[in-house]
């Protein structure tokens, strides 16, 4: 049994996660997470639809979080971890935890792919997954 950190954030196709966003079909802007409306002030139609986002992107920047965040962030066996900012194309830049990088080997412009990994085990929900970005080509 497994669950996701928040409903509607991403979906699983087998083991493969897909981020769920919103696309405005009028002005072609893509949003993540799902948005209640298009935010483009020049877009009058604001016709939005659910959009499954690309699973591959380029690392724009990153940091390593050395201190444990407050308790709303639930994780088993806390250790410092990396957070990246990833360009998924069409102007959409998404933040997420990084997986499979050595802290001294993270490089901006590295191609990355979306993965789903457990954060913690919950008595009722089972393993709770979040999305992360891992190197496209294993080093």
């Amino acid at each position, binding site marked *: 049994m497994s669950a996701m950190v928040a409903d509607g954030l991403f979906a699983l196709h087998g083991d493969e996660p897909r981020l769920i966003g919103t696309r405005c079909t009028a002005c072609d802007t893509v949003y993540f997470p799902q948005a209640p409306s298009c935010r483009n002030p020049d877009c009058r139609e604001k016709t939005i639809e659910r959009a499954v986002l690309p699973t591959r992107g380029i690392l724009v920047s*990153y940091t390593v*979080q050395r201190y444990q965040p*407050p308790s709303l962030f639930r994780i088993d066996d806390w250790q410092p971890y990396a957070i990246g900012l990833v360009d998924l194309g069409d102007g959409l830049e998404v933040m*997420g935890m990084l997986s499979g990088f050595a802290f001294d080997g993270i490089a901006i412009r590295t191609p990355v792919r979306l993965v789903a990994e457990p954060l913690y085990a919950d008595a009722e929900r089972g393993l709770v997954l979040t999305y992360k970005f891992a190197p496209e080509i294993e080093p």
Partner: protein
Amino acid sequence: MTQPVYVLGAGAHPWGKWPDKPQLQLALEAIDLALADAGLGWPDVQGLVAASSRFEGGMGWGLHANEIVQAVAEQGIPCVNVGGACAAGAIAFHTAHAMIASGEHEVVCVIGAERMPKGFIPRPPGSQDDISDSDYLRWVAMGATNPAYWAIEAQRRMHELGTSKETLARAAVLMRRNAAGNRLARFRKETTVDEVLASPMVADPLHLLQICPVSDGAAAIILGSEAWMKRTGRPAVAVAGCAIATGSFGDPGRRIPTIASSVRAGVTHTSEVGNAVARACAMAGIGPEDVNVLEMADNTAWHILAWPEQFGFYEAGKGDWMLERGELDIGGTLPINPSGGFLSFGEATTAQAVLQICELTWQLRGQAEGHQVPGARIGMSAVLGLGANGGSVILKA
């Protein structure tokens, strides 16, 4: 009608941790100082605008201004309580300015007072626990603290513009050096590049001494019309520009607490502040090149380098050179945060933008003892608040 607006008085309680002083007392002490500075008393005050939060005080609902008048002056005056997170002080100032400029009032007080909770700033109660709330998602999905957002910006700058870790450390050193001469600052001990780089890494590349902590503090401003300004006998400090703004679509900034941005080419980074700065400049009829002293929100050392570039003071990448050459020092061409900035004060959210305007007032009057910018005639403030809130005030001697 519209009428010119002047700063009649400024007052601030020193920043620090004051566990024995309720927020109300911090506020009253700051207002007393500002009133004394203006040579006025409560009977002269025709309105009170408070930058309000819900951390503490304000009758539990952020009614800070009401709490204050009920404590010291039940005289029927209008109380306005404004939100705007860390930009709330600028929004309160903007409201007070409008109350006088409109001709409705002659003397209005602006107050920001805050006692911050310990550690990380918590989510407010009653928030939604679902994907419609970014401040929920950023925690549950990746545990992104505020320093993580700033660190991602700083890392990107190092990659794009070649900023060195030493330069990034030097920005923090400058803030501490300025604060050494300011009795209101919390951290007044000078530091060195080596010390900054030896302080614990919080979020790479940002060390502890390059990130502002939270503090308790209070600041107040008395605004008034020209007739009331003349009564004070003080050198006139005029509000030349005063603007608040929100963000532009396509802003490339990594805006706390969102977890993604839809970026468009050519949009100003941190556009909520850029928009406020541009409007304040237009109102004052000046450009960034005319500013003699800039008090800006330096939540981290990265902000010192990046913000003036983003808001048109000089081109991208020049901040490093300006800092290294001493041009951002108190004696330089663009002194930034002679007060010591957020890095030396720590952030008392709603009070911060009011303190910036107090500092500019003292600078333009030549009263910034220990950290005076020689001959400052035009001062600008710039501040950012959660929810894409920007504020900027321009004062002229």
